[in-house]
């Protein structure tokens, strides 16, 4: 867990990056830089901004993923909830009991959303290239990327995704169409 001050600095970095001017960056470059380990674990800090009422909600937890198999996203504070994502399903459990299950088979919207989130977290750049236009800059091993949805149906949900990382993804800012914004910072415990 990061200390509150560190957290704020990290948030600031995210915001700064999102305001800087972006140059040419290609998916191929990202592909070359990114490591995509089989398994990875870590913790996250999330700040969700609700534009409607001007309130930010902070949460934190741990995550792990197995490449192209599943992501486990465990929110610990302030509420305990575990989300398991596979390429076809999203399952939410609380206190070890499944409370909601969404099957992308049944629902196109979920399929698209989980597909994108999965691709972002596991650095599947070719997949993201199908859905987003890329802008960004690369400075040594550090990169910042702006992803703008190509497709109008995705644009209705996500207006912009900002990513920052080196070998691994360090932060995400997800701008939703209605003005809500979700910023996530990652700390990896392996590597």
């Amino acid at each position, binding site marked *: 867990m990061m200390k509150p001050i560190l957290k704020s600095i990290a948030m600031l970095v995210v915001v700064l990056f999102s305001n800087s001017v972006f140059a040419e960056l290609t998916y191929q470059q990202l592909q070359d830089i990114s490591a995509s380990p089989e398994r990875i674990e870590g913790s996250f800090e999330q700040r969700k901004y609700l534009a409607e009422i001007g309130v930010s909600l902070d949460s934190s937890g741990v995550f792990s993923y197995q490449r192209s198999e599943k992501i486990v996203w465990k929110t610990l504070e302030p509420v305990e909830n575990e989300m398991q994502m596979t390429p076809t399903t999203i399952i*939410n459990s609380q206190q070890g009991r499944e409370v909601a299950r969404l099957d992308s088979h049944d*629902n196109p919207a979920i*399929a698209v959303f989980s597909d994108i989130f999965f691709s972002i977290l596991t650095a599947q750049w070719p997949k993201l290239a199908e859905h987003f236009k890329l802008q960004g800059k690369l400075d040594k091993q550090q990169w910042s990327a702006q992803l703008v949805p*190509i497709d109008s149906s995705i644009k209705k949900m996500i207006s912009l995704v900002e990513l920052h990382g080196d070998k691994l993804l360090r932060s995400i800012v997800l701008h939703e169409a209605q003005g809500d914004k979700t910023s996530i910072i990652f700390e990896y415990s392996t590597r």
Partner: protein
Amino acid sequence: MNMVKTLDRVANFFVNKSRQLAVLWLIFVVLFVAFALRSGVNFDSSIIALLPQSNKDHKVQAASDQMAASYANKLLLIVSAAEDKEARQGVRQLATRLTELPQVEDILWQIDAQASDYYQQLQPYRYVLLTDKLRELALTEQYQKIAQQALANIYSPISVAKSSIIADPFTLHSSWLLEQKTDLNVKVSNGLLQVAGQVQPTYLLSVSLVDEVYSARLQQSVLSLVSDEQEKLAVLGITIQKAGLVLHAAAAAAQAKSEISIIGVGSLVGIIALIIWVFARLSSLMIMLLPLTIGVISAVAVTVLVFGNIHMITLAFGAGLIGVSIDYALHFMCHRYQTTARMTLKEILPGLFLGLLSSVLAYSAQALTPFPGLRQMAVFCVAGLIFSWLSVLFCFSYLSDITMKKPQTLGSNYVLKGEKLFARMSIILSRLNSYLLLPLTLFVLLGLSVLSLHYNRAVDDIRLLQSSPVELLHKERAVQKMLNVTSSSQFLLFSANGIEQNLQLEEQLAKQLNDFKKQGILEDYQALSQVLPSIKRQDENAQLVQAIYDNSLSSFYSKLQFDSTKVAAAEQELCAGISARLTPKIWWSQQQSERRQSFVIKHQGQLFTVLKIIGPVDNVLKQALQDIDKNHTHITYVNRVDDITTLLGDYREQMTMWVLAAYLLVFLILLLRYKKRVWTVVLPSIIASLLTLGIVAQIEQGINLFHIMALILVLGIGIDMGIFLTETKESASTWLAVSLSTITSLLAFGLLCLSETPVLHHFGLTVLIGLILVWVLSSIMRNKET
């Protein structure tokens, strides 16, 4: 004696005025045909058109028709390729080309931003549209859990259930939408419809055609474009799979077309060859083809006039008419070679008339069936027979007079080629009659037939009507499996008073059906109440939501550290929106209703609803559904396949009665004229019919409706034969005519038994066997004294 005089007068009239009559008749025929076919011939190839209307229940029929229609005009195209880019390009290319066609009403292939907007129309009704899960929690008062879930959702990085935190803190609206499953196994991928769970990138185009799937023009333009593109895209490694009724319709049409040409041309060539061999004159041939041509063309004209269109199968069956309608001409000409036109008419007119009468009677029985297709065939044949009969009567005196100078010398007994041959054959066969063995053999054979019939089960399967190529059915099934759709013909029909009552009834039944699902008996079902709850259910939901707000809202908000103003704001939203109801009228006006509009059946000013059964129906489920039907006055279990089987069975039995009645009627009419000799006229037909049925039961693994119907033909032709032979005291020329007409009929109907269309095959086979037997039996049982 009076009758002889009348006959003289009639014959004289036709001979004396022969020229005027011939000209007038031809003018009439030309005018009539021109009038009837003024707007062209509209060909129909729908198998459904052959199906009878259900005799049980009009609302069931209306529902079945509507369900069939919602599927009928769809053409599903599945495009796949190794690379995603190529598959997408294929979809675009196909869609662009198809849009150009006027026969294409709409293509569903891309989802644009607006399309998903229509779900927003439901937003005002969020407080009364609850998912089953949330209802369950609220009903069991698990408010804490509801708050927990709302919290988890708000902190989730990907909030798929997206809602305003004030207007809808418990994400009622998006949860409801998320539970609305798509009916097809597709997902939106970059704006296109991608088929889920495929190895290769695979996309769907659902083409809605204008309502003329059976029109040849539509089939031609749409399918040729698709196969054209199929070839072009195949070069790029892009494959297209197809499914839809239009494909079956086109296949049936193509099949019927080729069969019509084979059967029609085959029997025509055979008949021409026979006539040339026997009469050895081109002029005779031309004369004899005249009533045949007039018969067929007029039959088409009459059919179009009566039905508005003509079915391909009618035409294929009608091709067999060629063999029957030449009969009258053959009889006239065979006699005419020996005597004058006047004498010919006098001799053959009674037989000709009785022959026509018995055939028309036989076909009329067919017209009484409720099968639209069969009725059309009957009208076609009756019209064809009457027109060729009249053509012989009106034109042959004149035509034979101008082509033949005098009757041939009476020096030789046999004037025409073949006369001797057939007379010989019949004499040889008739010798069998002298053996005691014959009655015994016949008796044994009849006994065997009765046994064969007794131990044979009847076949009334719907497959009797199905003629689609197996390969096409396989491909169709593959596509259905890919998309996870079943063209299920099974459903429950709710017929309570008014839509609200029906929705309530559906909701009551849902519990039972969900239990079936849990037990694995039922795969799934689709119902209107799943997208449009009854007002009663919406009222209940409103109360539940009020309770959720009362019990969970403040604890949820306090966890988010929201102040009391936010609670007040959310409650104000609730207050403003909770009385909104999604009425059927509002629902109907919304775009999203399109998916389930076919679930509402409008019939005689009443509104019924339909609950579709998805997945296979085994005996356990069938029994369960039948029980539901039994226990609810306003729920009917409709199983189209079983219904048609029952119907075919009913008609098979009815038809058997009709055949018996027709035999009896013909027997009575003939009894008036022939008195004791009536047995020699009808017995060969009767014995032949029984033997035929016995044989067919063995060859075809069961008797079906169409075998019985074919017996009517055997009766018609067989009795004709008996009448002519008796009328002319079995003269050599009659034997020739009778034998020739048997051979021509055999050519026509025998070829039908090669047909791939089951109905025609059954007809052909029965007539083929029946006619051979009639001819042989008539020969054997002929009067020895002559």
